[in-house]
């Protein structure tokens, strides 16, 4: 074996509509470890990539939300299986940023556990959060949660894998489709997750991933009228203010996930009430005795 060969550096692509695409802008950035070592390259998404991602998410919405709860759970569980089988590669993707190997393995394990946890909620959240209501007329009256639509998720810088997995799973389990904006300091683990999702029977467009600069992408996401909700986990006050201000354009829902880095590994990241931030409740009156 020739030890002098040039290493083949990967350019991590964006994940839009089930395809691995370069940025429309043609821009790419070097990914660097904490010590400044050039690891790989990744695409820097522009606002037009965001626009394309929202179009893909909107197109995927009718198909994904119509799938049975059971099937959605199966697919999320399948993603956990795929992640498990690639656990060592994913841990390597995290640890080469400079952390220790054991911590990276623990993060992958946490991500897998989150997928399994939220997979279980797909066929349970409607019973838990929905209700049959007592009414003073001969009607069968019930309230059911329905997916809100296209959700933009702003991931925190760390943890680069465990946080986005928990955020994504809690959004798509109810039938929403998502566009996630990656960590700015460590985007590669999330972009590697795209390769897991692409082989998990998750239909293209249900999850779309963009890497790049939050200040560049968030204003357009927040003002985008075809986005129905925003989940901000960036932990940055300026980004949150920008998201909330833009969201006022069409009164889209804007929620925060204010967790510390450590919180993403514990019980705080297994929160079924997160589901409520991206569902709408529909109440139906059905006449009785007919």
């Amino acid at each position: 074996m020739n030890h002098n060969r040039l290493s083949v550096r990967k350019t991590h692509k964006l994940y839009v509509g089930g395809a691995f695409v370069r940025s429309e802008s043609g821009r790419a950035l070097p990914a660097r470890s904490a010590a400044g070592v050039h690891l790989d390259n990744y695409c820097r998404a522009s606002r037009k990539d965001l626009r394309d991602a929202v179009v893909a998410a909107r197109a995927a919405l009718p198909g994904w939300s119509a799938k049975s709860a059971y099937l959605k759970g199966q697919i999320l569980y399948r993603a956990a299986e795929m992640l498990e089988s690639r656990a060592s590669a994913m841990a390597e993707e995290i640890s080469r940023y400079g952390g220790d190997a054991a911590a990276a393995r623990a993060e992958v394990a946490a991500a897998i556990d989150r997928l399994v946890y939220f997979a279980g909620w797909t066929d349970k959240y409607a019973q838990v959060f929905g209700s049959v209501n007592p009414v003073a007329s001969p009607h069968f009256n019930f309230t059911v949660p329905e997916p809100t639509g296209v959700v933009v998720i702003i991931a925190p810088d760390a943890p680069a894998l465990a946080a986005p997995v928990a955020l994504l799973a809690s959004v798509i389990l109810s039938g929403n489709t998502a566009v996630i904006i990656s960590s700015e300091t460590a985007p590669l683990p999330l972009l590697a997750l795209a390769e897991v999702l692409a082989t998990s029977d998750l239909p293209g467009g249900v999850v779309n991933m963009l890497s790049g600069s939050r200040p560049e992408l968030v204003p357009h996401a927040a003002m985008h009228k075809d986005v129905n909700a925003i989940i901000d986990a960036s932990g940055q006050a300026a980004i949150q203010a920008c998201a909330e201000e833009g969201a006022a354009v069409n009164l889209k829902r804007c929620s925060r996930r204010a967790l510390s880095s450590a919180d993403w590994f514990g019980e705080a990241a297994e929160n079924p009430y997160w589901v409520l931030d991206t569902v709408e409740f529909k109440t139906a009156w059905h006449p009785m005795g007919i």
Partner: protein
Amino acid sequence: MAPDGNLTLAMRAKAMFPLPSSARLAAWREAAPTVDQIMVEERAASFAKRSIKGAAKLAGLQMVVSMMDLTTLEGKDTPGKVAYLCHKAAQPIDPRYDVPSCAAVCVYPNMVRAARRFLGTDSRVHVASVATGFPSGQFPLRTKLEETRRAVSDGADEIDMVIDRGAFVAGEHGKVFDEIAAVKEACGDAHLKVILETAELVTYDNVRAASHLAMEAGADFIKTSTGKVQPAATMPVTLVMLEAIRDYFFATGVRVGMKPAGGIRTAKQSLAYVVMLKETLGDDWLTPDLFRFGASSLLNDVLMQIVKCAEGAYQSADYFSLS
């Protein structure tokens, strides 16, 4: 603009008329220019790579709206739907966005009366009717003419006729020519658009020849497709027809219009067509009198882009009326 070779070929073809005589037609077909498939597809693709931004984009999009034949050609069309379409064509969006009205509404012959009644007699929006056994064209000439006359007397300003593609590919060019000429006569003052249904003509050479035949027979416009056969309008096929129009203009001085129809759904696509039009036929053709888009879902996408230009936020179909 055109290479000299093309010009002489077109002139030679012109000199072989008057039609019809089957021997002359056969000779004309022999002399008709052929199309280089690779080059026409490359060149057509190049028009989609222009970067059009800001004021030029907005002006382009407004022009696209003014060139649009807003179309509904469904078995379930009702006078109510046609009235709705007329309203949308006359006033596509809130006046504050300064968007012009569409060029025409395009409907089935049975709906012409409803469209005319709704638009009145002095509307800027024309009423176009498909005719002559749309979409197949496989009907006797007598019923085609009757259908055309009725659509015109019901109030159609424009007739979109289909040619008999079976006759064309079987080599009966004389029959196709005669039918177009007869329908043109039946149109009276109404403008005639001739639909070639390019997907069924199979080759670019056939498209080029059929374009020339239609123009010679009296077409005011040539149009790609019915929208009922895939692929409908494509950039390369439209380019072939635009070049036929250009050569016909050089040979005769007559300006014939062009209407790509079917499959143009996004604002970006429509701008690429306008670029192709300008770079092939020049500024003279940048008018609804000589260029139309046949479309149903395109209008909303263009309107969404216009509002995006005005307000800065990407738009959602949720906030626009149905096509």
